[in-house]
């Protein structure tokens, strides 16, 4: 299971993921999506992947749901600090074509 931490700084929602982000984290992440869609004046969202060790297709699917939510709310979205296996999986899934991926 992944640990998910959400903070808000000025107009940016920051979501920090750590551990293993898989399909089993869906309900936890769904709460964040619901919160995001309620709209709290944020104009951008960043997902910090620095401490994420693994992501599977279920986790990738949740990032796509987040992308959909951000588009709906007209919020900019970026995936930050992915490294190692996680960065490689994002590359394989061609997420750089869908997200702003920041090293």
């Amino acid at each position, binding site marked *: 299971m992944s640990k998910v931490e959400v903070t808000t700084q000025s107009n940016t929602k920051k979501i920090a993921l750590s551990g293993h982000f898989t399909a089993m984290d869906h*309900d936890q992440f769904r709460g964040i999506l619901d919160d995001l869609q309620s709209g709290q004046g944020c104009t951008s969202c960043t997902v910090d992947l620095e401490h994420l060790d693994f992501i599977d297709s279920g986790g990738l699917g949740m990032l796509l749901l987040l992308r959909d939510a951000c588009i709906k709310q007209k919020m900019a979205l970026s995936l930050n600090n992915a490294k190692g*296996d996680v960065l490689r999986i994002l590359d*394989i899934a061609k*997420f750089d074509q869908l997200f702003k991926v920041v090293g």
Partner: protein
Amino acid sequence: MVFAFSSHAILGSDCATRVISALPPMDDDTRFCVRVCLHEALYNAALHGNLELMDIHCSGITQQVQDRLDDPRLGSRPVFVTCDATAEGLSIVVKDFGDPQVSLPAEDRGHGVGGLSLIRRLTEDMTFDPKVKELTMRFCWKEAI
């Protein structure tokens, strides 16, 4: 080499790494591919196969998974992993015991990030036989160890 896992074990622990630790040493690139593919295949077998869940992105999925794990008919089904390492490469067969009429692994969704899509990209060859619920994945050794 044959391994048997419960769906509960697959969803609650890192069974892919347990299988890899019992396999012959392999280069880092192959290890990455095997780990990702095994994880995806095991999750597919447990969630879409044995537990017969079609949509893992629906609301309340955690409770649905728990309810089905607690259902003796679904929760007791095992997943078998058969590994065959040769000089050329590695073959892994993952078999679940879901009903072939109602349970199929989730195909690619939207942008092609479904489990089978990742497996296709990381294996030399991948086949799935829905009648016997067997996913076969083949990997070639990239470097001699």
